[in-house]
């Protein structure tokens, strides 16, 4: 018994040492045989990307809205690039950001997240800077129409009336936010632009917002237009208005509601879906990825999916995507500053 043990331990140590000196890295995806594309290739020539299965890291749990957006993109993208595209989920978006930022810049791993990544950075919820630690690959579809909802027995029937009420009762109305994240910015901006004071309380995901507003525990919240409308039809909430990324968004699917921009509130969101690669990814890889994504918007299943979710299909080329990211960053930065939630050094 003792001898066998000693042999086993010695074997373990010996193999460990041997492997440490000369072992090879075992990776899940087939080994990349292409040279690291540091040298710029001739334009028009095929770049080294893609090289085997591409993994898109969705910064949300399986089944969450960001996850669904990711899956619609990846399902349409896979046949376009001729490779398997796999989605990996994360319980915490901050872990998703950090993980992808630390990966090799070879185009095999991407991050899919909405504009909230900027908000998370500005407030210090994550240390990953979307401008420096990540490279934008493409701005894709927008996040779709959102509804502003309130409890069914609220003393106001639309957004403008709610603002009036809020002015007369400062601090009484509560709104559902996810601290340091996108909805925090949303309600903070609305409060500023309308000159009112809300009590901001935590209810981070769609489910919680719907149930707490329906139960009357929180006064106001935002959710997807589809959810808001179906809950209102069942008498569970009241929709005060719709919210979109632009003031001229198409609301024909919901003719009985108006955009809050039409109700006198100068607020539009910046909710788009982004695809990012780790910083240091070579330019032509980024170009190749961006160009290949254009075809996604022509995919039937993708279009149908977007329509069902009330989102407009979209894709921007690399230049426009970068400009958009910078624009959103600057605008969110000033909002964060005025709300006093900018983290140190941002």
């Amino acid at each position, binding site marked *: 018994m003792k001898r066998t043990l000693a042999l086993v331990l010695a074997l373990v140590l010996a193999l460990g040492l041997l492997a440490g000196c000369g072992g090879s890295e*075992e990776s899940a995806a087939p080994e990349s045989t292409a040279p690291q594309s540091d040298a710029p290739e001739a334009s028009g020539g095929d770049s080294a990307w893609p090289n085997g299965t591409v993994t898109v890291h969705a910064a949300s749990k399986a089944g969450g809205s960001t996850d669904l957006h990711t899956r619609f993109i990846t399902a349409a993208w896979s046949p376009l690039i001729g490779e398997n595209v796999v989605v990996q989920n994360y319980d915490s978006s901050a872990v998703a950001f950090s993980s992808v930022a630390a990966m090799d810049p070879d185009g095999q791993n991407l991050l899919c997240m909405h504009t909230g990544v900027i908000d998370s950075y500005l407030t210090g919820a994550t240390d990953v800077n979307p401008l420096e630690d990540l490279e934008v690959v493409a701005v894709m579809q927008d996040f779709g129409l959102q509804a502003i909802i309130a409890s069914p027995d609220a003393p106001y029937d639309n957004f403008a009336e709610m603002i009036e009420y809020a002015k007369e009762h400062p601090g009484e109305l509560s709104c559902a936010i996810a601290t340091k994240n996108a909805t925090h910015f949303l309600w903070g901006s609305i409060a500023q632009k309308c000159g009112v004071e809300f009590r901001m309380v935590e209810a981070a995901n769609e489910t919680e917002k719907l149930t707490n507003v329906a139960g009357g525990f929180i006064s106001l919240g935002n959710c997807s237009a589809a959810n808001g409308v179906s809950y209102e039809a069942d008498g569970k909430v009241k929709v005060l208005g719709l919210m979109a990324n632009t003031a001229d968004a198409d609301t024909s699917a919901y003719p009985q509601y108006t955009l809050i921009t039409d109700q006198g509130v100068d607020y539009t969101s910046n909710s788009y879906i982004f695809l990012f690669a780790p910083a240091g990814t070579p330019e032509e890889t980024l170009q190749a990825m961006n160009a290949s994504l254009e075809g996604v918007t022509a995919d039937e299943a993708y279009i149908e999916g977007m329509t069902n979710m009330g989102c407009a299909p979209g894709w921007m080329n690399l230049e426009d995507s970068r400009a958009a990211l910078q624009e959103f960053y600057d605008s969110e930065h000033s909002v964060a500053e005025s709300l006093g939630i900018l983290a140190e050094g941002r």
Partner: protein
Amino acid sequence: MKLNRTQVVGVIFLLIAAFFAAMTPSIHVIDGLYEPGPRIFPYLAEGIIAVCSIIMIIQARGKEKDPTAPESKPYLDKAGWKRLGLASALMIAYAILLTVLGFLISTPIMTLAFIFVLSSGEKVNKIAAIVITAVLTVGIYFLFTELFSIPLPSGILF
């Protein structure tokens, strides 16, 4: 002062509670919260552990003299502690090897180690052990990386 086995555990948990209690004040609390904040539950947990550990230590006093109490018998005899140490070392080793060397190298090594150690001296057919190890390693590898597209540890050395 000789402590019986329950009391030793009580002291360890008390120390753990104290350790974390020392770190709790560095948890960042944002301003303007309407609620108690992120430190309250850690303090609650540390408090429960500390208070109950002290009660447990006191309650266990003298139990080692009570033949019906588990404290009267040692948890393990000397040979048992050695075996525990060996098994624990293997468990830790596998975790470290997975981190450093990745799945494909660590698993065959550790599976063989497990087989030989768990056999506790019973005769093990070496060929059978090697075959089973190979099948297990390769099987899991293909199942996860090819069929499921779920990555396995790839090690940090290369």
